[in-house]
């Protein structure tokens, strides 16, 4: 058992390092850019919103409110997109028998999650440095929210990968389906202030709950009336189960395609 765990750990570590190298290029500052780019693009959006004189929908800092929304949504989107194409990358790697089909999936997800931890750390530290935000009020809650969002993204990405392996056009359909997420996930408004009629529809969107949960972890008294932690957790677990089961069921079909 210990030997199996050691092998699994070794393979995942090697794959994460390889993915890092493949995704961020040869230069040492490649990875730095991967952290700076999303942080900077969020900063630009915040600057634009501030310039047109928007008031923060909640709390004192527009930047903090916006960042908790955008970065959570981006974490989800990034996982959903990057994991979708994972089986293409698999082909060559499976030459080495210790690497199993799911390992590349896990390695990529770990890399993305770790990268987003760093992105958020950089961005929120930056806000604190400029006096635009305080430290998170409930760090434990924030971490649970992050982990659940990562699981949700992992499940969605795995399901995407399985569907893509059966139906090539899914690449484009998925893009169309996830495009509205920016508007329906509470990125630039407080869902609890919306009329009941709107919430009845929006609360089906698990990413909305992810954003709400992250804000509940950051703010002292966000007091979301919409957040349903068990709903997002169940959706995340269901997607993960469907994705992994689908991977297993289509594995032979993929290897003999």
């Amino acid at each position, binding site marked *: 058992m210990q030997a199996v765990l050691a092998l699994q750990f070794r393979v995942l570590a090697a794959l994460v390092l390889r993915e890092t190298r493949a995704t961020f290029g040869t230069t040492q500052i490649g990875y730095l850019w991967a952290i700076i780019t999303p942080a900077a693009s969020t900063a630009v959006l915040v600057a634009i919103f501030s310039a047109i004189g928007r008031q923060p929908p909640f709390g004192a800092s527009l930047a903090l409110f916006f960042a908790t929304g955008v970065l959570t949504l981006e974490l989800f989107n990034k996982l959903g997109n990057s994991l979708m194409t994972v089986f293409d990358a698999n082909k060559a790697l499976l030459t080495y*028998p*210790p690497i199993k089909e799911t390992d590349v999936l896990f390695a990529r997800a770990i890399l993305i999650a770790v990268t987003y931890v760093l992105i958020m750390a950089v961005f929120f530290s930056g806000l604190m440095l400029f006096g635009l935000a305080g430290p998170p009020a409930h760090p434990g809650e924030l971490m649970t929210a992050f982990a659940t969002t990562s699981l949700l993204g992992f499940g969605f990405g795995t399901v995407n990968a399985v569907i893509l392996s059966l139906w090539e056009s899914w690449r484009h359909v998925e893009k169309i389906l996830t495009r509205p997420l920016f508007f329906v996930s509470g990125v630039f408004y407080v869902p609890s202030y919306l009329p009941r009629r709107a919430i009845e529809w929006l609360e089906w969107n698990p990413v909305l709950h992810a954003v709400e949960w992250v804000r509940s972890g950051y703010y002292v008294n966000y007091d979301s009336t919409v957040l349903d932690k068990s709903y997002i957790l169940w959706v995340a677990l269901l997607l993960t189960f469907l994705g992994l089961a689908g991977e297993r069921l289509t594995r032979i079909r993929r290897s003999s395609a």
Partner: protein
Amino acid sequence: MIELHGVSKSYKVKAVRKHVLNRLSFTFPRDRNVAIIGPNGAGKSTLMRLISGSEQPDEGRIIRHVRVSWPLGFSGGFNGSMTGIENVRFVARIYGADTEAVIDYVRDFSELGRSLNLPIRTYSSGMKARLAFGMSMAIDFDCYLIDEITAVGDESFKKKSQAVFKEKLPNSRIVMISHSMSQIRAYCDCGLLLTAGGIWYYDAVEDLIDAYSASMARSARKS
């Protein structure tokens, strides 16, 4: 050493299903070097990928009692945008080998010099083969799976690989695909003949080669 129980494998080629192996059961003899020969398309490489575990059978089970290498071919598994060293480091990590020791060995064996710091896509097939072969020899396996790889390279490379093999042979076995009968004679004690009509095992390498020549002659007459 390696046991195959009722192993089947088929591929879909342009909506036509092609059966490569049909309920093959076979135990690779312990302490012997096994050749796999047959015409192109008979399923030699597929069989080797199944043995290594890099591919799963549609049906049946494969049990490995020893540490088996990946199938040593020319290109497999290299990432073209990564340098030679980076690829070697990656494989050493997977197998839990001492990364620096493996790199030193490969540097010495492959004689690729500064090319090791260039992306693999700039390599010729001969260079790739040197790298792949050196890398696998740097990691200790009980059984090496060799898919034609020793057929490439110049004379000095061939001599070098032979010498390394001689070192390994007391402790490791090989399973080898080759179209070169002299190579089969040099390394193997027995073998499998794969043809479109079926799979046969020969306990003596000369019988194997005779049977192969006979089957090739038959198919030449037919066409």
